[in-house]
């Protein structure tokens, strides 16, 4: 009970934030009822997916300060578990999603145990390496379709199929991912005030002090890594049902890992709203830049150039992200 009350307790934020957040939440709920194009709808779903990925990354990368650039491998594990179980044994989504999360957490223990002895850059590059190893294995593994990937054929099922999460209209997917989104926010709100959350922030600030205070640093990191993994894997499973066609290249590539980390950093790593703000800016930007510029003849790559310039500017001049700017402005006002 205590935990649930904590999860719903946002009282440490200023009222203006809560008003904005509430208005946005209301907007998210009523958005599909208003007239919209299918492109906007797809962008919104992408936005929710990436904000949940970002929330996952934020637990270990933001609160814990351990830069993980291999999150895509868990997207892959979640997506492949769901697809394989659905295709081969007709196991519904709501059962295969927890199983996928289980696999992901297991894999995160296997690689997390040795990896968390590394720090900083070393840890970051090592997570990339594990991610690439897993991707290479999936690309040759015939059981999961090798490099061709796997497709869920929607003809076999009767949409709307709520058990297997096979729909024709995007609106159903929208509400499912919106539900995950709200659960994610509440969970993180509990997490940042939990014992583990405080331990992590202590580890981030000074690991030696944390150890001398009796915190089991290694174990705390592994536990948080497992939590982050579960988040990512959950959305990975959703991704499989939503896209219906998964390949190693578009579920496990390095670009996705980086995008996840970038999202959280752009919004403000280590804050509750950071990943949401980051995803809210980057995902529409990416989709629309691609739509407007990428399709124009002779300008291949110019959308990604702009996108790269934004990354470079943010990381060079405001590494604490947009939330960092907001807080800076507030602090100045209070003075």
């Amino acid at each position: 009970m205590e935990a649930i009350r904590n999860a719903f307790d946002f009282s440490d934020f200023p009222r203006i934030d809560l008003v904005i957040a509430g208005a946005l939440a209301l907007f998210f709920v009523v958005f599909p009822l208003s007239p919209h194009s299918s492109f906007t709808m797809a962008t919104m779903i992408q936005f929710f997916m990436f904000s949940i990925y970002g929330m996952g990354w934020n637990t270990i990368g933001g609160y814990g300060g351990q830069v993980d650039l291999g999150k895509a491998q868990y997207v892959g594990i979640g997506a492949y578990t769901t697809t394989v179980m659905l295709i081969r044994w007709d196991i519904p989504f709501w059962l295969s999603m927890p199983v996928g999360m289980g696999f992901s957490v297991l894999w995160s223990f296997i690689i997390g145990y040795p990896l968390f002895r590394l720090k900083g850059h070393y840890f970051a590059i090592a997570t990339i390496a594990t991610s690439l190893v897993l991707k290479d294995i999936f690309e040759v593994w015939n059981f999961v379709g090798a490099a061709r990937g796997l497709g869920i054929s929607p003809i076999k099922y009767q949409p709307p199929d709520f058990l297997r999460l096979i729909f024709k209209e995007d609106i159903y997917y929208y509400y499912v991912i919106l539900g995950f989104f709200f659960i994610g926010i509440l969970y993180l709100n509990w997490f940042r005030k939990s014992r583990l959350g405080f331990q992590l922030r202590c580890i981030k600030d000074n690991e030696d002090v944390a150890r001398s205070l009796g915190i089991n640093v290694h174990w705390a990191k592994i536990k948080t890594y497992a939590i982050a993994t579960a988040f990512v894997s959950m959305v990975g499973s959703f991704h499989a049902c939503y896209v219906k066609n998964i390949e190693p290249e578009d579920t496990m590539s390095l670009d996705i890992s980086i995008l996840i980390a970038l999202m959280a950093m752009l919004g403000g790593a280590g804050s509750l709203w950071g990943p949401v703000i980051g995803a809210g800016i980057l995902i529409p930007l990416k989709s629309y830049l691609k739509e407007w510029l990428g399709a124009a003849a002779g300008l291949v790559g110019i959308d990604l150039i702009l996108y790269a310039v934004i990354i470079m500017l943010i990381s060079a001049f405001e590494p604490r992200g947009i939330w960092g700017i907001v807080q800076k402005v507030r602090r100045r006002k209070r003075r």
Partner: protein
Amino acid sequence: MEILLGAISSGLLLGMVIALVALGLTIIFGVMDIVNFAHGEFLMLGMYTGLLTAQFTGVDPLFTLPVAAVVGFLLGILCYSGFVKFLLRGPVVAQLLGTFGLMLFLRNLALLIFGSEDRALHHGILVGRSFDVGMGIIIPATKLAAALLSVLSFVGVWLLMNRTKVGKALAATALNGQGARYMGIPTERMNNLAWGVGGATVTVAGALIVNFWSVNPFVGILFTMIAFAVVALGGFGSVPGAFFAGLVVGLIMEIPGLWDFLTYLTDSEWMGQFPMTSLKYMWIYAAYFVIMVVRPRGLFGWKQ
């Protein structure tokens, strides 16, 4: 036996070139503790420099190396003083993502300018020639020249780092930047120099590689990952380490060829089914992972 010798010799030759690719990364990392994701993109630009200079001026690709070195030196300094300098103030995550942004920028700039098709050199004194040493060892002239020049570059950089005053200043900056500044070493200039030398070595490597490897704007990331593996294996910041680790990685890259031969020799069912060729690069990443776990300092590393 002959096959084995052939594989080892070609692995070693490739390894020397790979070592040269990783040399720039290890210098940059050693001096300023920053991981450069754009390293492979520098290489890609070096490859384009070599290719285009050779095509436009008509000189042999081997003589484009000085041009590549100058371009790389300027590119390195430009990247450092225009961008990376600002990253150093921020947290680790900003540094990682910042150089990743640089990589994305350079890659797509190249895509915009050069287009996405593969390009390769088809002329030159060395292209297509090879020496048959006997015992199954056949050495392509391009790779031999590349390997020799790589060794030369290594000796040059090693001498620069260990036998000159500038090298001492670089080492001092690497060990303790603040202390070096108190001693009157212009650390900012040293950082610039590290990026310049790092960029120059990698673009030279690119101009060498383009003799036997076709180039497109997406070639960078593969070499970035290989270079990371080499640097981790040899120890971050260690010049001799990068050389020996390069040889090891070159040998690892020859495993699939040997595997195919063994399959043919023993005619075994499961070996033929095992998709070794597709897993070519996985062994490098796996070796990297194991090294990081067992000995994070690398074989020759001095930074923890």
